[in-house]
């Protein structure tokens, strides 16, 4: 399983993702520069967190036009695994690879705090080793993570079971009090219909070792390591 981590100017979770892949898991890692089109044979492309191009104009609005994004779109089209975290999720929405948009947090302030996520899809490559309804403790860090979609899009997402993660309390109950940013239906992460493109606001790469507060993020990375082999041999 070869992970590619895309670096836009202004990206900052690239190094944290790289640390987990390379140092915690010992998996294969490539950094992919935004100006390059070559995905270097990666099996999973991560669009990490940060403020690509300063998020000037609108989050992810400039990054989506990067040369690398053309390759990412083709890769996704072919069924390649694409994982957008935080700013990466915003870029995927801007690029039209995922439906909906991420708007300003309802508190109108940046939020960095621990959240609990309940996992509703365990049949994706990203969540294969997660139990259904398992609660994961993973932090958020964003100013624009408030998931928004028009009613038809939202009901389509729900009907097709595309919501992978919802903000929940520590017991897994999806309650308004557990929603940190005003996201519709407490949505924290979604996949496309085919299930090969995941976007999520929380940062699993910051929850990969117990000493920094949680290792629950590893469930996602491990799922990819497991399923990656299947993708390659399929």
């Amino acid at each position, binding site marked *: 399983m070869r992970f590619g981590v895309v670096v836009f100017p202004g990206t*900052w979770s690239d190094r944290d993702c790289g640390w987990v892949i390379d140092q915690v898991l010992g998996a294969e890692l490539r950094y992919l520069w935004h100006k390059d089109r070559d995905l270097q044979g990666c099996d999973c492309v991560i669009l990490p967190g940060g403020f690509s191009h*300063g998020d000037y104009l609108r989050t992810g609005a400039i990054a989506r036009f990067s040369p690398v994004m053309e390759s990412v779109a083709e890769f996704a089209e072919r069924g390649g695994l694409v994982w957008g975290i935080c700013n990466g999720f915003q870029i995927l929405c801007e690029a039209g690879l995922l439906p909906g948009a991420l708007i300003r947090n309802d508190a109108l302030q*940046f939020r960095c*705090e621990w959240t609990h996520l309940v996992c509703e899809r365990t049949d994706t490559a990203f969540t294969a080793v997660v139990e259904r309804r398992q609660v994961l403790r993973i932090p958020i860090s964003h100013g624009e993570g408030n998931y928004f979609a028009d009613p038809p899009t939202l009901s389509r997402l729900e009907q097709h079971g595309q919501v992978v993660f919802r903000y929940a309390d520590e017991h897994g109950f999806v309650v308004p009090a557990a929603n940190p940013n005003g996201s519709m239906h407490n949505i924290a992460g979604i996949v496309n219909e085919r299930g090969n493109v995941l976007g999520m606001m929380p940062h699993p790469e910051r929850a990969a070792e117990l000493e920094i507060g949680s290792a629950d993020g590893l469930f996602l990375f491990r799922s990819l390591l497991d399923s990656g082999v299947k993708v390659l041999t399929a």
Partner: protein
Amino acid sequence: MVDARKLKEVALSRDEYKALVSALSREPNDLELGMVGVLWSEHCSYKTSKALLRRLPSQGHGVLQGPGENAGAVDVGEGWAVVFKVESHNHPSAIEPYQGAATGVGGILRDVIAMGARPVALLDSLRFGPLPASAHHFAGVVAGIAGYGNCIGVPTVAGEVYFEDCYAQNPLVNAMCVGLVRSDRLKRARAEGAGNSLLLVGAQTGRDGIHGASFASLDLDQDVEERRPAVQVGNPFLEKCLLEACMDLVRMPSVVAIQDLGAAGLTSSVAEAVARAGSGAEIDVAKVPRRETAMSPYEVMLSESQERMLIVVARGHEADVQRVFETWDLEAAVIGEVTDDGLLTVREGDEVAASLPIELLTEGAPPRRPESKPRPEQATILSLDFMRREPPDLSRSLKRLLGSPNLGSRRPIFRQYDHMLGAATLVPPGGDAALLRIKGTRRALAMTIDGNGRYCELDPYVGAQIAVAEAARNLTAVGARPLAVTDCLNFGNPDRPEVFWQLEEAVAGIATACRAFGLPVVSGNVSLYNESESGGAVYPTPIIGMVGLLEDYTKRVDAGFKEEGDFVLMIGASGNDLGGSEYLKVVFGQVAGRPPAIDLAAEKAVREFVLAAAQAGLLHSAHDCAEGGMLTAVAECCLLGGLGVRCPELRVEGDLRLDSAFFGESQARFIVSAGSRAMPELQALARRQHVEFELLGNVHGDRIVFEGQVDVDLAELRDAWDRALI
């Protein structure tokens, strides 16, 4: 002869002008006058404080770089050096809170980057007037810090904030940055080697921030509206690109030096880098990339446009450096070269626009030694008698204290800051100190920033010592040993004898405490003229940034109680130390009395005890006893751990007041908790180290109870604590 208006514009006195003319043996032209004006400002020249600052100890074990560089550096083992510095951005934040604070963060980051280090953490010390009147300052500054730090991707991991009347017109915004670098890659900003090239990199130069340094050296007065253009606008995205490009440069042997462009822009940046090497420089302003047309040499030389760096490159290697910046879509223009003539020569094309001796620029400001005298009412402040009042209800007082802005939960602030980025944060904000692991090792850096302006107002010598002692206790409370200090001295107008006296006393206090603890002061900043016509001077507010080391982070502790049944102990002894306390302020509405007594030997003893106990794995929690006293500290341990305490009646002996035992702010104390099996060893350790040790009670339930004295529901208390700043 120059006219008075022009001298006011460059903030030079008539005497300073005379000294300049006599040193030059001629009249300076306008550009030269402007350049000297900014470099001779207090902000750049430290002409008033320099003699005092020499009293601070700057050498010590492990110091790799002391004061005089962009930031200080200390060896932390396994080939790593920690680089850190604190700096003020008070005046800009008073005028434009968001941008003032944001560019303060941007500036301190560049100081650390210039040393070749990757910034790993930011800290802030903030002071505002009371809420809600000062809410615009408070909200704007916090948003500005968040806006810059979050975007550039450096976690903001610790800080402090207090609200007092004296800061209403003149808030304080001190930002500290901590970075890491391999010791052998530590850079120094010395522009060496005649013929080497000077490259200006990063943002283009505009007309923003001209005379910012001079502005910072004046009182805040009615000109505030006029001064607004002197505040710069930050671009954290650009600085992120600049940061990454500079990290690439650090590995290149052809890069001789990296120097930040901060206050006084190109003028001070070139002059300082050249002065350190004893060389000279010639630059051509026509080669400076600009974002505005028709800028004069004066404007180019004095612009404080943000996100710029000066790079000194060995001749012939310019293109290598330019390629790195091209990757990040940044400008990198060769604007001049290093010379050996001891002059800073500024040309515009073929024409010489200014030529000044470097030494005159950086060392020529006539030192100022203002009169020093305590103010007449100092004696009254100290002796004011408040001790006859009957103590009010202790439970209610606790709720009022924890629900007050100075002691309430800081979560509404730090949840706006990314404090987890880098996946290194082991102890997050909200505790005594932040603790960050050095990835790839078992080592961790502890960091804190502390000050107590109120104590210093009542007694600057004692107050400054307490600031150092408290910072050291905060590091100890996470299990780390203090290494070194950076300081930021925020004072009023030093031309007033009582202010200069405060400055002298405070510096002496820092020096005394640092010497006693063996802590070098490796970097720092002075911010004077923090006063306004309507608001008067701020409290003398020396701020201490401190960094410590924990060699094995599995031995870390934090403040929250952990287990039902654990013993709760107070280390150290309580006295009648209600002077200057939060209790006195919140419950009695008074700022008076003597600040708590300070005993530096006792401080060391309790810290050694806590460190030894933490190393031996005997502690489940440790927390410094500071503002709000013992009961506040115990309550904080409860709130952080989500567990109550049950204690028997607290017995007071001798002339100790009951309310002072609970809320007095006696120094050299910790609240720790431990399991029953650790108790015999802890008692033996306390006996061996001659440390006072008092069993308060046990961790229990969901109330804070001292039998017959205090009974508070934890949920109710949490509600007040959570809402204090919202």
